[in-house]
């Protein structure tokens, strides 16, 4: 079971990470476009459409990846203090109550929306003869389906956690605040921090004497 869960995690992660390179492309594209417009005096009409599509695809396709890494923002006032079984029970209920109706509606609506766009061979109307827009709209059901798949995996995780009393493991990923990496970046070791303690203790005693 654990293998299957991790496999789905890997698929979501792979898709999300692949599409995350779009930000590099987007940065380079806009930089080039600005250069081309101001220096070469040669703006491109399609640039705006392409930028928007890259941005939209980037965040939509990263949705399942973010879910797989448990990085969607959640209210952390109480949740963090609950024991794992309570966490899993709450999550399981809310997955059925909110997640499944929301995401199933999302995939369904996205599918009809994209199908209509394919049927009329829709092109962007921001500029005349804009690029085709149906692939972009197809992103909606695809991203929704990925999230649905990842969500089912998360539901199974909740059930496992309810049974065994602790959360099944996830694969590691790059973190926004990775303390160890930051320590390495500024060359600070744990011993250095521990050594500082004497200054703090000295201050405490100094304060007590006064």
């Amino acid at each position, binding site marked *: 079971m654990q293998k299957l869960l991790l496999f789905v995690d890997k698929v979501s992660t792979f898709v999300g990470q692949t599409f995350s390179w779009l930000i590099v492309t987007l940065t380079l594209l806009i930089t080039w476009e600005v250069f081309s417009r101001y220096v070469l005096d040669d703006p491109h009409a399609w640039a705006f459409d392409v930028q928007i599509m890259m941005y939209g695809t980037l965040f939509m396709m990263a949705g399942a990846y973010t879910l797989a890494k448990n990085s969607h923002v959640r209210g952390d006032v*109480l949740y963090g203090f609950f024991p794992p079984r309570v966490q899993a029970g709450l999550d399981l209920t809310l997955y059925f109550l909110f997640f499944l109706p929301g995401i199933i509606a999302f995939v369904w609506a996205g599918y009809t929306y994209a199908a209509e766009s394919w049927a009329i061979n829709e092109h962007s109307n921001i500029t005349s003869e804009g690029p085709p827009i149906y692939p972009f709209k197809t*992103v*909606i059901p695809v991203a929704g389906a990925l999230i649905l798949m990842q969500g089912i995996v998360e539901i199974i995780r909740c059930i496992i956690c309810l049974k065994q009393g602790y959360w099944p493991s996830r694969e590691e990923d790059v973190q926004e605040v990775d303390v160890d990496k930051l320590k390495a970046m500024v060359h600070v070791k744990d011993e250095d921090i521990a050594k500082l303690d004497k200054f703090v203790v000295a201050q405490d005693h100094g304060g007590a004497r006064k």
Partner: protein
Amino acid sequence: MRKEVWFGLSLMAATVILVFVLMPPPSQMTNGHLGLLMLAMIVVGIMLGFPTAFTLMGMGVIFGWLAYRSVDPATAVPRVLDLFVQRTYGVMSNDVLIAIPLFLFMGYVVERAQLIDRLFRSLHLATARIPGALAVATIVTCAIFATATGIVGAVVTLMGLLAFPAMLKAGYNVKVAAGAITAGGCLGILIPPSVMLIVYGAVAGVSVVQLYAGAFLPGIMLATLYIGYIIVLAAWKPQLMPPLPESERRVELPSWARAQARHGSNALTGLFRAARGSTDANLPKRTAFGQLLVALLPALFIAGLLGVTYRMATAPEVEVNTAGLIEAGGLVAAPEQEREGSSTGLAEATEPEEKDAGAKEPAEATSDKSAKQPPGAAPVVEAKPTITVAEEKARLAVPLWLWIVFGVAIVGVAFLYFGWNWERFEVFKMLLSSFFPLALLILAVLGSIVFGLATPSEAAAVGGFGGFVLAGIYRFIGNWRGARGGVAWKTAKELGTIVKESSFLTAKTSAMVCWLFVGSGIFSAAFALLGGQEVIERWVLSMELTPVQFMILAQFIIFLLGWPLEWTEIIIIFMPIFIPLLPHFNIDPLFFGLLVALNLQTAFLSPPVAMAAFYLKGVSPPHVTLNAIFAGMMPFMGIQVIALILLYLFPAIGLWLPSVIYK
């Protein structure tokens, strides 16, 4: 049970009780009441800890269906699906939100550029003589670095690793040190370019450009207040922040500079002598010339600045055709501007480039047609409509104020060089390699946005590229000093890792923010369909508040929400409820946004959920307690409240800059 759990549970209980008290019995429930119920449910739902985006999505779909069903049960399902997907597509093709991943990427890249230790060291030497030097250097480092990266956690952690040990070793009080780091680390949320302001702009329909121009001065003001507080405190109670020992203050001079210093303490005359070759020190002429050039940089910079000012102030008048000029972004907030636009129709800008830049701005068009006037010109040229066609005219006479500026600048430069000894020269060179590049990057990004040369997304992309170049240079220098061979290859590999990590993080964080938008799209649509907005509006208007009371109430509610919720949730979910109320009280959404941004900053420093404190605790020695950190944050939180009041009493602090630039 823990204190925090009780705190959360009591908040939740309060919400539920409030619902029971305010709700009529189920038989008399209208759709509007359903809307209010929805609002209460979302607060409880968020606090239960389920990913907020999906809570919003599920609730939005269910309540949207209920709303449509009450009209016509047969078509309810297809209509709610249509609404949902259109809202989603609106987020996907939003030309304001596109700036979010770009700014995030820039932040992550700059964060990994390995320049913060250099920055802190040089600022620490530069401020060594000021009381509370290390704390001041901490705030300045934080302000610059947090502004460029915008990531509170990383900045607080890094400063906790760098500045906290330095301050403790120097005998600083633990609380003061912790307060300076946590308060400084949060500055990045307010000072533009910040992601928070983009999110607010997208939600409220306020131009991000104006928000950036508006938040700049309040942000600087807050940083200045922090620094002022530290200096006063250090002068008043030196035992809290003892002055640095001589060994910490000394600047290491290179051997040639030491040799030169024996001939005279002034670096500029010394370098002149050396460049002429009149001294026999072991200093080759080429080095001397190079150093002289570096020493003259401030003078050259000031001269360049004066030159540009001169050109702008005396440039020939050019008529601007306002019909072609369209401001970027929604000028929702400009009754004044509209009046002016319609009464004169023609206004003058004195710089041709300015006009072109304005005209080139892409069509985030609003129907407002207003001309703009560059800031330098405002005092000089009266806005009298001319009928003349744009053509080259003679330069204007030099106005008096320009002479005064010239005089002040020249005296300033002279003063600078008079006291320019070798130590200061060395510190200047350190700043040149750490502080100025980053400051320049930020100012370039910000300047090009504010003066309309680029849209926020364009500036962010170029800024990200600039951050990448900066990271490349710093990593290369770092490797070059450390290792023997293969420097270029090692740097390239490091850059690869930086870009990879940054783009993964960007993908996750922008997915987090933008999926929240997707969820709130359908949620707020359902809320509006149920008429919840009207119920709230009626209720608020029935209280017959004065604008001041409303403003205080709104800020108070936002402050309270800042405890259990993240700023993303507050702005994306709750701002759409406040924004429609603003016109009733004649409040400018731009101004309101600035207050909200400042207010939410306070939330980062208010216990018990202040994120900054936990990040600092994670890297501090074991005897630094969380309570000590909280106690240290308190005075800074007080300063934030004072800043909030100041901004409220003197709206010009925030609105002056946008009004000058976008008149």
